[in-house]
């Protein structure tokens, strides 16, 4: 057993055919198929989020005041912290993919673990330091929404609720993607540690990497749109 395990770490030529699914003729075809498939999936993701960004743009143009005031309820410090966390996690992800490509199984798993820890950190900041205080400040649409500025500005509560609706919808959808990412990394990491057949070959980790960079990029757009808009 141990001989086999050690042996499979090396990328020997005959090893390649072993990871070839039956429908493919050769590894090249298989690799290209996975990459094209993943990019097609990311295109659907772009349109998925794109529709929300469209809503955001339309209401931002329509109700600049509501967006300004709503934005002031958000803390750019936490936003910034999360940006740093996610960017770092992209770096650790790249390192994991690199380790996988060069056949360093354990190292790849370690970097995946680091990425998941950072991703979890992102969620902690998001939920504990941002969403929960919003609840305390009565800013959750439908649950307990109360807009304190209503008396002294012309911005109606409904429009502020709309801003927070978009905020929760967009960061929420992004958050779901982060959770899914953690799940994927946990599974892949475990498989790497167990030296499972599918992860003896770097492609699954490469694909997870593409996904994770996409999640990261979405945040790169969300961050300025919600946290920095007032800083003209």
């Amino acid at each position, binding site marked *: 057993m141990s001989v086999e395990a050690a042996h499979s770490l090396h990328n020997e030529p005959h090893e390649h055919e072993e990871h070839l*699914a*039956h*429908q*493919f*003729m050769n590894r090249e*075809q298989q690799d*290209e*198929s996975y990459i*094209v*498939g993943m990019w*097609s*999936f990311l*295109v*659907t*993701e772009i*349109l*998925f*989020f*794109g*529709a*929300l960004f*469209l*809503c955001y743009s*339309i*209401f931002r143009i*329509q*109700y600049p005041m*509501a967006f300004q005031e709503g934005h002031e309820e958000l803390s750019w410090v936490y936003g910034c912290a999360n940006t740093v966390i996610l960017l770092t996690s992209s770096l650790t992800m790249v390192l994991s993919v690199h380790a996988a490509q060069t056949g360093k199984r354990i190292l790849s798993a370690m970097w995946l673990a680091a990425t998941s820890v950072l991703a979890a950190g992102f969620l902690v900041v998001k939920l504990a330091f941002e969403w929960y205080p919003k609840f305390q400040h009565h800013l*959750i*649409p*439908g*649950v307990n*929404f109360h807009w304190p500025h209503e008396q002294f500005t012309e911005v*109606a509560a*409904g*429009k502020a*609720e*709309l801003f*927070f*609706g*978009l905020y*929760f*919808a967009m960061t929420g*959808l992004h958050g779901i993607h982060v959770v899914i990412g953690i799940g994927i990394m946990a599974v892949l990491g475990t498989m790497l540690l167990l030296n499972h057949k599918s992860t003896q070959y770097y492609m699954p980790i490469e694909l997870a990497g593409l996904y994770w960079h996409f999640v990261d990029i979405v945040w790169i757009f969300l961050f300025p749109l919600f946290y920095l808009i007032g800083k003209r």
Partner: protein
Amino acid sequence: MSIQQAPAPDTYVKQESEPVKNYLNAEHTVASWLLTKDHKRIAVLYLISITFFFIIGGVAASLIRAELTSPHGRLFTNDSYNKLFSAHGIIMVFFFLVPSIPATIGNFIIPLMIGAKDLAFPRLNLLSWYLYTIAGGIALTAMIMGGVDTGWTFYTPYSSVYSNGQVVMTLIAVFIAGFSSIATGINFIVTIHKMRAPGLTWFRLPLFIWAHYATSVIIVLGTPVVAITLALVAVERVFPIGIFNPAQGGDPILFQHMFWFYSHPAVYIMILPSMGIISEVIANGSRKRIFGYELVAFSSLAIAGFGFLVWGHHMFVTGESVYLAMVFSLISFLVAVPSAIKVFNWTATIYKGNVTLHAPMMYALGFIGLFTIGGLTGLFLASLAVDVHLNMTYFVVAHFHYVMVGGAIFGFMAGLHFWWPKITGRLYNELWAKIAAGIIFLGFNLTFFPQFVLGYLGMPRRYHYYPPEFQAWNILSTAGASVLGVGYLIPAVYLSLSLIYGKKASANPWNAVGLEWQTASPPPTENFEDIPIVTWEAYDYTMLPDVESDLDYSSLENEGSVSGVPAGGVK
């Protein structure tokens, strides 16, 4: 049509002792079906599921037509009538028409046509079917628990704030179904890009493949948008985030923009695969290469592209800017051009062709006529002033049934008959098939032509009360629907019977060209014994001897792939 050919001597003995292995008899357990990764089996699973939903949608349609025989709405309350037509629309669009051809015939035939062993991602393919089934289950549960009265279009703020039905549950179902079609779309794109047999260049591909490629592009670009839009409606029912609610400063028209951004292209998701089938059938029925092959191929892509720029024609009366409406109207006229190119090229193919009127060909001819009527009435609706009169009337209903039933479903029937011997390994009864095709054509026109008249006279859609002077036309339409219903029952009967009593099909019963006809019927699990090498153009009917038998293609090296194959398969 030839039936069966003498097996080659050396395989003869083997065939006597044990039946030839194919994808159907490879394994028999239930698990071998429910956990299969074989595209052919998944296609069969899909075929069974969509037939089930077609029946449910059809029952709803019959009830609608029954209700409309009387101007006073005697059978249903207002509320149940609203739920009835909503159920009909939701099931037929999202659970029947969108997956109908791609997930069944496309799933089965695409890998065979391009000489691949399977789709690129077999597990994703199975996941797609499970998502579809789960979604269908949720949708049915929602209907049993009270259903929705929003129409298939879920317009806000009615759907997001006021409606009392099972809106959230239904939206979840449609959302999940969307992901099942995205899975299929991605799979097809990758498969068509990466899995083609050696020598099968883009311009040697059958037009069926081009059509499915264009369809998949639309699915991948459009479906996520409607998914998130419907998700927002569902969220808005629970938390008042207000995006589509005017009371909070939200914009209900924005919903319509986002909905139609998908749902106009979605009508091409429904029609393009059908057009692909028509190309195959017409080439075979006329024994000629499709006239202007490249133009027909590119017109599919043009439709996919332009299709994304015309959604505003559903919103002419919502108060969208007149200038915007003018642009949408103009582009809607432009999108008819590629459709017309196809119709003209098919007609030109038939011209001076060696035409065989087999059942698939009858459906194909029906398609050409009915789709032309449907498309041209689309142009009436795309004309601004005319639409002000016609929108929300039965004219619109007639228009889209001409394209969806007369177009998409006629294409589906053509394809189902054309590839039935390939899928099941059995021949169906051709005489009954022709009779049924005739009855369906008559019944269809009798059902929907009167609806053009009704709409023109001003009968609104989605009401079950109407002025008594419209009754005669409505009864005519219901009579037609009964004929149509019988027309659909007949194929259900003879196709089922063919599974047991049908003669065994040879590998190539239509004497057609195309890789799918080079392997046995039904195909072995691996599709081809050896991956074929393609050196010829699509629809090269000159390479087949012009006789009604299954002779080997002269240009094929694949020994034994066509002639000498015992009926039922190789190996």
